[in-house]
């Protein structure tokens, strides 16, 4: 990653603590987006929170807060109470990767049909129809 980008790898037990620390002590208050990655070879799922800052002098800085979760039991705490803006992105990550964000106010489908009855589509073992 280039200059002014920082990736912090943490785990599900510490992620909330680290989130509150980077928000309050380092000034990363402006959530940009939340991404998920399916590392199928390592049998892991990754959630990455990209957080910007409105603190003068570090607006160009993007902090990536990442946690890896086992694929069989993908449970992670929600960070909605750290950054209010992650509610929809987490909901999207939930439906696309099947990650269960504990404590999330509403994990119903955002983009997928209500009756979607298949693997979460952005997982690597889900194959697009006709492929």
């Amino acid at each position, binding site marked *: 990653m280039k200059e002014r980008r920082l990736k912090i790898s943490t785990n599900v037990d510490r992620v909330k603590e680290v989130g509150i620390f980077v928000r309050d002590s380092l000034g990363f208050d*402006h959530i*940009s*987006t939340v991404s998920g990655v*399916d590392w199928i070879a390592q049998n892991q799922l990754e959630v990455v929170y990209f957080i*910007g800052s409105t603190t003068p002098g570090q*607006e*160009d800085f993007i902090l990536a807060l990442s946690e890896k979760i086992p694929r069989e039991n993908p449970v992670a705490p929600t960070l909605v109470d750290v950054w209010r*803006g992650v509610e929809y992105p987490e909901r999207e990550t939930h439906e696309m990767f099947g990650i269960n964000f504990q404590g999330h106010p509403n994990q119903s489908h955002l983009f997928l049909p209500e009756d979607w009855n298949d693997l979460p589509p*952005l997982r690597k073992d889900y194959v697009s129809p006709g*492929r």
Partner: protein
Amino acid sequence: MSVSLGPQHPGAAHFRLRLWLDGDYVVRTEPDPGYVHRGEEKMAEYRNYIQNVPHLERPVILDSSNILFPYALGVDELMSNKVPPRGQYLRVIMSEANRIISNMYFISIQGLFLGHTTMITWGMGDRDLWIDFAERIGGARVTFAYIIPGGVRNDIPEFAIEKGLKTCDWFDKRMDEYEKMFFNNPMVHQRSDGVGVLSREDAIAFGATGTVARASGLRVDVRKDEPYSSYEDFEFKTPFLTQGDSWARAYVALLDMREAVKIIRQALKKLPPGPVRLKLGPQPRVPAGEVYSRTEAARGEMSYHIISDGSPRPYRVKIGVPSNKNLRALPHLIKNVHIADIPIIFNSLNFWPVENDR
């Protein structure tokens, strides 16, 4: 009582709002997107880095160059491409032209929702001049596939520079008229002042960006914060207002266009000579790596999270679109308002359902 607004509503377009009403008062709102979800991110994993160019710009046809821009920047960063100066300037020109095309549409529709017929007819007419401008450069009217990894697809023809400068002069005059005719119109003020106010604190908490954030006094602009593609060469300001209401969100878009015209004029005048792109070949080798690239699109921060595993196709492409970032504020804004205020607040968020769904 709970009712649906959309997905067939002519203004909401492929998007549904669930409203909980008490008389004509909205108590609670829940957005229900997803009607135009096409799985762009999954599609990107099946195609190589160049094949991804045309389909990635489809979600946001009003602002098609700006959704490709951060993708191109991200792939350039992974490949350590040094884009030639002329290519960088042409990227800026096309991006700013698209900003005007998109903002013009936004303001025109805001006029339509306010019952201001002149704004939509004049606005759409002048928007066409910029589509013509982009057509002379990119060869198409809507989706250009112009900004590609390594630079831009083709050079700008000489006559397009001359005509472009003429369009800039004309448009400067027109923007003065929009200001007089639409933004300083007492009826428009009465209808949209203080409607759907988003405070600066809430804008930060929801992660709002672009016109929505700048209307609430949050001075975010990736072009200034993190200059890319030679933006540091141009003189321009980041306009921002503090009211945070529907009027301010529309007016910021006009101020943005003033700056965009300034940038286009400067770029056209001092366009450096030389090639416009690097020769990459149809299947470029992209080293393994991870990148987070972002640019300022018409609606706000457009970002890409691209992971390459060294194979010809990306391992993961995440598109962070501004509509999605501004949608987070919608349930907060459409609450305790009259039904009649919904179109004004909804449109002032500059929300594009197709971009949001991807």
